[in-house]
């Protein structure tokens, strides 16, 4: 069967769908996830540099041991049951988003990373990208980062602004345009 056609999320994605706490992956149903808590924040801008208000972001990542909370991961049985690995945020009027999460472990064959999805009015398809951590030797060997033209790879590496505080700005189009993946 042929996958259904995508469409934009439009301007009216209900506010209540960005549930309070949906951007905090460090706890689940009152239990604390294992590992080091970190913060990832940034601003999302369009071509002319305008920050985008009410853009929806979702992330997906491995737990502190590098295990994905999904049965396809061979180590699923050892996954942290208090870590869902998924979160959702929406940008503010200033274009800013924020996640609290756990520093992911490096999955087999990959550098530690966080998958991002962006959904917004005017985006007919979900935009997908991947965030990396600075100063990780494994970044050099990561097959997904290696697929990105060398001159653009640095755009996928977050900036460390303080202990456990990362900044990952996204530009949908134009100068310093974030690399997005065609899956």
């Amino acid at each position, binding site marked *: 069967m042929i996958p259904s056609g995508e469409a934009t999320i439009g301007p009216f994605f209900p506010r209540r769908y960005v*549930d309070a706490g949906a951007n905090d992956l460090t706890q689940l149903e009152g239990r604390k996830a294992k590992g080091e808590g970190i913060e990832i924040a940034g601003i999302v801008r369009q071509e002319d540099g305008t920050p985008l208000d009410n853009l929806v972001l979702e992330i*997906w990542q491995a737990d502190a041991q590098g295990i994905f909370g999904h049965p396809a991961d061979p180590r699923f049985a050892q996954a942290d049951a208090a870590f869902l*690995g*998924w979160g959702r945020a929406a940008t503010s009027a200033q274009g800013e988003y924020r996640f609290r999460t756990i520093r992911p472990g490096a999955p087999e064959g990959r550098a530690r990373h966080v998958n991002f999805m962006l959904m917004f009015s005017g985006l*007919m398809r979900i935009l997908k990208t991947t965030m990396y951590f600075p100063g990780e030797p494994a970044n050099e060997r990561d*097959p997904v980062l290696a697929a990105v033209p060398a001159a653009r790879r640095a755009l996928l590496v977050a900036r460390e602004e303080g202990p456990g505080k990362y900044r990952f700005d996204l530009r*949908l189009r134009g100068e310093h345009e974030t690399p997005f993946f065609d899956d």
Partner: protein
Amino acid sequence: MSYVIAPRDERTQPVRVIPGYPQTPWRNPKQPLVKRAPTLSELTGPSNVSRRVQLLGGDVAGHGETQAIGQLLHLRVRVVDEDGAPVGGTVVEMWQANAAGRYIHPNDDDHAPVDEHFYGAARLVTDDTGSFLLRTVKPGAYPVPTKDGWWRPPHVHFSIFGRVWLSRLVTQMYFPGEPLNAQDRILNAVPDAAARERLVAKLVPPTGDPYNALVYEHQIVVRGRQATPAQP
């Protein structure tokens, strides 16, 4: 259980920059999208999103004194993968305008009236057959503020997680026989006519059950299929 995501036929998916849809040229990448071979990271995904977000059920039409104004509908929707296998246990989010074409959202300051009994947002989990039932009212058409005569036809938005990260889908469902379908810039951004037709629900001929609602059926196909088991 391993799952395979293959590239899609581009003609079955919308173009990204649409003439007459003013936001699209500002927001879609100019650089070529990067092709990657999916790894475990993209071929896994959140399997229990309802532990993080609140389910709202599938009845948004209200009852009795608090029933929404409009044509009462039952939407029978089924989510399957590319094998046609039901995708059970996945979270679905639906949102739509009220019968007058108004969304309950701070960004909708359109002329159309609010119906205090209609918020228009359902969030639920598909059953073992990949199915869910929505009880709602028919959404109204509404003008897009481009001031050049673009109206959105009646439509229902869906956000679906599917089994893995790359099966995540945001789509819209349309109604058959709507004259505005033919000129809608979003529906017609999908080049392939058959692919557009699959975004249109089917009216089930009324049988008297339910006696007071029109029934539509719709199928949504998310990406992915089971890997063929290796032969010994």
